[in-house]
């Protein structure tokens, strides 16, 4: 924590790809008319009595064309804020070796800091087999919020039961009109669950942050007798490793991640793969479509 405070907080820049409708001012392109910089047409001075916005050239052109005697005023679209949601997978498989809560907390802090910096709101929804009420935050714009959110994840206890079924409940929690949803998980679960969650989140821009486990956590041995303990269920399986089994094992793994990618493609979602700390630069590049 102290190290984080000393270091200057990393941040990234992002743009919401759609137009936002809202009364509050923000930084993202909006649909509502108001003070902004993107031109949205003319209006009669009597309808919108703001003489500062009078466009004389347009007025004359309009009067000559129509024979009326109106004054035209320029209208603009107002920039609006959005909400950034962090859906944090706190299941047991997220707490082994290279994939751990510390990385997740740092990412949360990064996202929250960037969101607040741009005047957007940030919400946090933690899940494992169910919703995690201890890792939950309704969208807010508070300045102190990034550190609080990160600490929530750091202090989160281990999951009480196995599974990531809470993903669906967490997706239900997101009710903002306009949101970018960061879905941070290792995605070692049924594709069906992910598919269902993505379907629910289809209104939003989803950024899946896929944490890849070390090879050792996927394939702990190349030969001989290996007893395996599932990180989620604790179920024990033993296997006599040999080339054919290794091949099958790798095949299953590759198939899973291929299906996962296909699922993301299907929902028009581009995943961000990482195996350690997520930096602001990485996310900036992601939003610029450069990686």
């Amino acid at each position, binding site marked *: 924590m102290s190290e984080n405070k000393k270091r200057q907080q990393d941040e990234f820049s992002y743009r919401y790809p759609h137009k936002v409708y809202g009364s509050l001012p923000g930084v993202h392109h909006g649909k509502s008319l108001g003070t902004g910089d993107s031109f949205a047409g003319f209006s009669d001075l009597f309808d919108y009595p703001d003489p500062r916005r009078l466009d004389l050239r347009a007025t004359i052109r309009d009067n000559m064309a129509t024979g009326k005697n109106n004054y035209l005023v320029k209208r603009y679209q107002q920039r609006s804020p959005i909400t950034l949601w962090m859906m944090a997978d706190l299941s047991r498989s997220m707490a*082994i070796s290279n994939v751990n809560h510390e990385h997740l907390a740092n990412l949360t802090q990064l996202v929250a800091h960037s969101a607040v910096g741009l005047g957007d709101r940030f919400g946090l929804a933690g899940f494992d087999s169910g919703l995690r009420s201890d890792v939950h935050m309704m969208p807010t714009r508070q300045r102190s919020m990034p550190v609080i959110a990160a600490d929530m994840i750091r202090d989160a206890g281990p999951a009480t039961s196995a599974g990531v079924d809470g993903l669906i409940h967490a997706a239900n929690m997101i009710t903002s009109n306009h949101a970018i949803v960061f879905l941070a998980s290792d995605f070692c679960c049924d594709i069906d669950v992910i598919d269902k969650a993505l379907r629910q989140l289809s209104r939003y821009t989803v950024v899946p942050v896929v944490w890849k486990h070390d090879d050792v956590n996927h*394939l702990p041995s190349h*030969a*001989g007798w290996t007893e395996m303990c*599932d990180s989620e269920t604790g179920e024990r399986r033993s*296997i006599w*490793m040999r080339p054919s089994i290794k091949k099958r094992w790798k095949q299953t793994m590759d198939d899973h991640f291929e299906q996962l990618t296909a699922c993301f493609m299907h929902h028009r979602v581009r995943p961000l793969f990482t195996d350690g700390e997520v930096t602001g630069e990485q996310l900036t590049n992601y939003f610029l479509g450069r990686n």
Partner: protein
Amino acid sequence: MTLLGLQWTLPMMLLLLPMLLLPWFTHNQDKTVAWSNFVPVDSLSNVIGIALKALASIVIASLILTLAGPYVPEQTIERVGSGAEVVILVDRSRSMDDPFSTRGKALAVNRTVGKGDSKRRIAKKYLMEFVDKRPDDRFGFVLFSDKALDLLPLSYNKESIRATINASALGKGLSETNIAKAMIKAAEMYGKETYRGSRTVLLVSDGGQEFSDEDKNKITELYKRENLTLYWVYMRSTTGLSIEEESDDDSWSNTPEKRLHNFFKDLGIPYKVFEIESVKSFSEAIDTIDEQESQTLIVEEIIPREIKTAPFFWFAMITMLLLVLAQIYTAWGVRKAHE
């Protein structure tokens, strides 16, 4: 305590046997995997898994059983062999120290104790051979001069009969001879035993003797009762006449040897005399007896206490070797995964 047909020195050690369940409960070599759905389902692995655990259990069980000290206690077994029970009566009189006489030669003057072919030594040599030839026989040994010494009661122990025969050939002979006493002694030796099969008395002597009537009666009664067969290996020292030869010469027919022979013949039991005048004839005589005395016989054998830890040790070692090989292979595999 008996288990698996074995006796155990420390049966309390068997209380440790539940330890063989340990391999089924320890998971000290667990590897955490992110998602076990990636792990292929493999029936061969299940079989090998169970086999390895079973092997580990077997090692533990074998070692515990070894600690408990299994042994087969000393036991006597009866088996049917072919042979006889033989009591050897050897004359210990001084004349046995003489070499064999040959026809036409005078009585040897030099009494050889330690050298040459004294009759005792020849007798020893061939008796030894006789004993070696007959593994299932039960031997007793009586040495006699004026007293009969039952050196060895009837025994299956080949070592002791050999040692006794060896020992009997040492030292100098004594002056007197008392065959009757020795024969009674031999019969008495049988009297203590249950009847198992052919019973033989093998008398080795170089002279005869007149028995008193009392002795004669006793011998007759005893030998008939005990159902004995008598062989007399007569090592002739005087030249000339054979026992069997009918001679009109009174002086010959009245010799003690002749009389003894006649007495034996009239005993009413199977009896055969072998007249030995050379080394060769002695061995022939022994061969003849060997051929004749091979009836079915119940043989009692004592098998000494046997410690049976070795098979368990071997079993544990071979099993452990398999496990070690599996472990080495595994260690190599894990190392490769972490590279």
